[in-house]
């Protein structure tokens, strides 16, 4: 290999004019699709859970598209660049969350055939003690994810086409807010299907093009000589992060209403198959993306920000066509995640904050039209909060997202135990979530982002088991099934 220093960050690969044209085309197309699919959302159930009738193909596609976020295409290469081969493999273990959720999604559908949200389950299962910490964690994580996606959109457009960060970030967020507003879950799942096809085809093309340009053996030789730790089996930080990433993935999927809302939207019996299939389809993607991160130092591509290494390497090696492909793939992955977050978080807030508040104040439940109005307001509010926070452009994608790691990882035991066992009570759930979050955050700041989720999940599990053993309850699952509005 002839080591030539490629001028990173000197000039954007795509012409800014081309970037604006692409952005406009995709923006208009996605909003039009949102309007078209939105015609089917005649009721709140249609808007929130697509009529609970999504089949296997759309169900699998939406799971894959939602889990292929900009984090997959930008964070997986960053992991590989920072933590080497273990980093890329560690990121791929997030697919285990989909495998684990497959049987659980069936259980959720069985217990709550008319349910809408994860918070609803926790409220029914554990009462106010479980509801408060879980709601706070859910909202915090949803906002963190939303902000990191918005940041990723801005960074990507700036790196690839020179579109200023504030402009790119604002346009991506605005487009997603608009088509989610018009189409609800129908638009989210429909666009996810298209996006998943685009993403998978695009990544295959990028991977084949990179492999035809770069020899893996050359990359290996260069890394061995100049960055040996990236190939080391005994890279300490990488070993410490491996199960941290996996548990973060479990926590993300198990607690997030993005996944619960899909479980409720899918037809009876479809959920387990869809999540299993989605896990297998998703698994190789971060490994392919991670290779881009490893290729950068081997190919003398200087990097200034680690979270831009993936798009930068692809675009630098493949020129305009590569930059175009990367642009399209990452735009689709961003949109597929931002719309899911907006829709699912709005459902959560409408069902578990506004509705109970409305009932407490007015004495009656929110009707369908009322829920639609509050959904609209909530989606706009979430978009505004994400925009204000993302505008600051603080931190890398990894540090922003993994800050929420201890919180989400601390939720997995209360959810799992609550779905399958009668004995765990409200105090066990609340203490597990609080202790896991606090101790996990201490580990996050004292040691690093790569152990926060591991410590959070471990402490949460120990506390949950101990308190359940000391204070066992007897919960009747038959109380969870009900008709109509959230109880």
């Amino acid at each position, binding site marked *: 290999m002839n080591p030539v*220093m*490629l*001028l*990173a*960050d*000197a000039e954007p690969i795509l012409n800014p004019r081309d970037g604006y044209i692409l952005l406009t085309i995709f923006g208009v197309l996605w909003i039009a699709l949102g309007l078209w699919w939105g015609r089917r959302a005649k009721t709140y159930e249609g808007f929130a859970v697509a009529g609970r009738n999504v089949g296997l193909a759309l169900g699998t596609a939406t799971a894959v598209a939602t889990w292929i976020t900009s984090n997959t295409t930008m964070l997986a290469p960053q992991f590989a*660049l*920072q*933590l*080497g081969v273990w980093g890329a493999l560690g990121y791929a273990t997030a697919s*285990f969350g989909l495998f*684990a959720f497959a*049987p*659980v999604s069936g*259980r959720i559908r*069985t*217990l709550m055939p008319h349910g809408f949200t994860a918070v609803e389950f926790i409220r029914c299962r554990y009462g106010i003690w479980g509801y408060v910490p879980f709601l706070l964690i859910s909202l915090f994580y949803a906002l963190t994810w939303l902000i990191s996606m918005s940041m990723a959109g801005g960074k990507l457009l700036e790196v690839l086409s020179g579109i200023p960060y504030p402009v790119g970030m604002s346009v991506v967020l605005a487009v997603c807010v608009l088509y989610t507003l018009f189409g609800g879950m129908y638009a989210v799942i429909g666009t996810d299907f298209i996006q998943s096809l685009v993403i998978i085809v695009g990544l295959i093309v990028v991977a084949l093009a990179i492999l035809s340009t770069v020899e893996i053996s050359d990359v290996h030789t260069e*890394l061995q000589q*100049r*960055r*040996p*730790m*990236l190939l080391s089996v005994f*890279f*300490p*930080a990488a*070993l*410490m992060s*491996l*199960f*941290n990433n*996996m*548990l973060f993935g*479990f926590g993300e999927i198990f607690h997030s209403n993005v996944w619960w809302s899909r479980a409720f939207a899918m037809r009876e019996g479809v959920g387990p198959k869809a999540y299993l299939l989605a896990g297998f389809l998703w698994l190789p993607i971060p490994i392919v993306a991670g290779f881009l991160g490893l290729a950068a*130092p081997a190919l*003398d591509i*200087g*990097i*200034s*920000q*680690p979270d831009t290494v993936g798009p930068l390497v692809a675009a630098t090696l493949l020129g305009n066509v590569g930059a175009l492909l990367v642009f399209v793939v990452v735009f689709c992955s961003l949109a597929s995640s931002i719309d899911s977050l907006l829709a699912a978080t709005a459902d959560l807030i409408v069902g578990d904050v506004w509705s109970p508040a409305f009932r407490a104040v007015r004495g009656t439940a929110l009707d369908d039209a009322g829920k639609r109005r509050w959904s609209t307001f909530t989606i706009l509010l979430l978009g505004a909060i994400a925009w204000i926070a993302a505008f600051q452009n603080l931190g890398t994608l990894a540090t922003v997202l993994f800050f929420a790691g201890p919180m989400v990882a601390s939720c*997995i035991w209360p959810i*799992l*135990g609550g*779905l*399958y*066992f*009668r*004995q765990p009570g409200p105090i066990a759930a609340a203490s597990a979530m609080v202790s896991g979050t606090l101790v996990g955050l201490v580990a996050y700041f004292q040691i*690093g982002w*790569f*152990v926060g989720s*591991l410590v959070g*999940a*471990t402490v949460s*599990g120990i506390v949950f088991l101990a308190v359940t053993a000391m204070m066992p309850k007897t*919960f009747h*699952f038959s109380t*969870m*099934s009900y008709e109509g509005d959230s109880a």
Partner: protein
Amino acid sequence: MLFRRSGISFADWIRTWICVIVASFFSQASPVSAQDPLQSDIGSLVVEPFGQEVFREGYVTIRWSGVDAPGGYRVTDEDGRLVYAGRQPQFFVSGLSDGQHAFQVTAVDQEGRVVAKSDRPVSVRVEHWPLAYAFWAFGTGLTVVVVFVAVIVWGHRATGARATGIRATGTRVGGDAS
């Protein structure tokens, strides 16, 4: 008298000495440099990280400030190898093994001439986490994940068997694992 015999008036003499004194004053105020005149135009970049910070993961972001560079910035490693060339005033490096690693930063103009550089190479000290810590974290994580998966498998089988039994008797589905 002395001045008149030499043809220089006292006023001229005083003026001459005043000029000499003023000239020497200004020459003292401006640092005298024995360097090449082009070298004296090279600015200084302030580079961080400073001090004795230890990096435990083998990666670090080196940042600098002080001078705008129309041609971009260059970073070379201790072997003189160019590891970064770009317009951003920062460089990310990873995969470093234990020990000291030095990097030199220069700013160049559009013709590639150096317009500023770091006073001395920035030194980065890497000391990876002890392997014992890594094995503990790995082992703990493996245990937690195995227990997690076991609970799902056991819960799924138990609730599935109970639900089948309930369906057979005609009552409501949705039992519990224990």
